[in-house]
């Protein structure tokens, strides 16, 4: 069974800081993986490199047989990788629905229409439907500038789902989301990608989320992969307890 994503020997340094150190990992289709690690351990750098925002110093990233290590975020998005962001990257002055509409336009990005209204019926319906999946239909016409952080987070994730990606990378999807809502959020995401059996990689600090939703956990430390396996095993690992979870449990 060929892995969806195959990463070999990824290295990345910023001056003296080691953000990635021989990172090697195979991700099979449909798996739900959580990346854990302290701040600065290299989780987000990993996501940045997989999505083309940063180029690795060395190593390879292969998606479905395509080498994507040197591709741009745009190119990587078109190949089926989507991501959400730690700090929501939205179009602040536009409404929630408009944000989604732009994402929907992205599907046929080569042929953006110069005359067909942005809020054409089919796009509008789809935008509302996506917002509805996260319970956000009522804020559809509010500009992002008026919406709270948690809501922005959800919209950010919703936008990543528009392209029905093969591989979905979520950077701290539940940070900034209230405790009652976080399970809800993750449930909705899982539900949304279920039809496509997408692979989900999520960066998380919240161990409850990790325990509940991850099939597999990868722990990072100083750019290295410290441990990689079943949640129970990884979270019990001595080094992981020392450098990541802080021995809680």
């Amino acid at each position: 069974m060929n892995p969806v994503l195959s990463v070999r020997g990824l290295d990345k340094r910023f001056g003296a800081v080691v953000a990635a150190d021989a990172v090697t990992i195979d991700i099979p289709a449909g798996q739900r993986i959580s990346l854990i690690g302290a701040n600065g351990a290299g989780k987000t750098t990993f996501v940045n490199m997989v999505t083309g925002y940063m180029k690795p110093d060395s190593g390879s990233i292969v998606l479905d047989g395509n080498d994507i290590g040197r591709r741009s975020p745009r190119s990587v998005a078109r190949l089926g990788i989507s991501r959400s962001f730690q700090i929501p990257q939205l179009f602040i002055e536009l409404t929630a629905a408009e944000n989604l509409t732009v994402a929907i336009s992205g599907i046929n990005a080569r042929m953006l229409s110069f005359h067909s209204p942005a809020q054409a019926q089919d796009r509008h319906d789809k935008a509302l439907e996506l917002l509805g999946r996260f319970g956000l239909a009522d804020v559809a016409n509010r500009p992002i500038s008026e919406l709270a952080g948690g809501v922005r987070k959800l919209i950010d994730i919703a936008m990543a789902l528009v392209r029905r990606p093969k591989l979905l990378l979520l950077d701290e999807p539940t940070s900034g989301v209230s405790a009652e809502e976080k399970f809800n959020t993750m449930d909705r995401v899982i539900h949304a990608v279920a039809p496509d059996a997408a692979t989900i990689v999520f960066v998380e600090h919240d161990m409850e989320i990790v325990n509940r939703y991850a099939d597999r956990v990868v722990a990072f430390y100083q750019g290295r992969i410290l441990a990689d396996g079943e949640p129970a095993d990884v979270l019990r690992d001595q080094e992981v307890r020392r450098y990541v979870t802080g021995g809680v449990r």
Partner: protein
Amino acid sequence: MGKNLHPLVMIALVAVVTLFGRVLPTWTLSLATIAASNALIALGIVVLARTGNVSFGQGLFFAAGGYGVALIANAWGLTDAVAQVIIGAVCGGLLGLVIGPLIARYSGIFFGMLTLALSMVFYGALVKSTALGGSDGFNVGRPSLFGMSFVDPREADFMLYAVSVIVTGLAGIAASILFRSEFGLASLAVRENNLRVEYLGISANRIISINFVIAAIFAGASGAFALMAQRHIDPQFAYWTTSGEFVFVAVLAGNQSVAAVFVASMALELVRSFSNLYLPNTWQLVLGVFLLSVILFLPRGIGSLWIRDRHSRKGTAVGAPAAPEKGAAL
């Protein structure tokens, strides 16, 4: 994002304004012609500004259009007004096609400075070009329309007025449709967060380039109008103060509605005309005060043109708190 007038209503409006020219006194007619032409080029600036990039060098395309038409008119005796507008637009557009993709990669302030530099390069070249008349420029003959020539000044003025109002009006209608379109929304998205646009699989540079070419086309056509009105072309068309005036109109108008561009342009011409009439050597003074008042009392007309600048720089807005965090966290 602007009044949603039906295109047919807008066309009717254009027709009405055109016919109204019949009853306007000559001085108003000339004024309105200049205003329409300036509105066209300012409209192009607004179109481009919606991507977050302001061009301070539209004079480049304005001059390219003007000189292109003037050279062709003198070489081939082409005097038809509509043909001249088309040639101007094409000259501007071709140049825009070459330059746009080159500079689309640059962010806000550097983009602006590049457009300024390029227009001044053109200006510098024109001033020293003896073949093109140097800083004096050269003259062209009267425009005609569809084979008819206009000897009576009143008729000639009206013809020019009609052509400029109709062309600018149509451009305005096209712009309104564009603003509401999928492409128009994507353009705004580029201004708001070009990183996210890329992550959605859309090429921000391509969107900027296309808007840039549109602005260049409008500027080239406007250059043709200016040429027809003055029957003279000179390097001043490419000078930075000329570009500055067009930005002035765009800024006055804000980016809320296309109609505002026409209003702002007309206001500018009226102010200029009246101050020249009653207080010579003061129209710039009045304009300056006018601009200050607008900035103070009508911020929406100003700030909205560039609400979000993409990069969060420390301490850029003087005395302002740091801009909200952007960019993928590391």
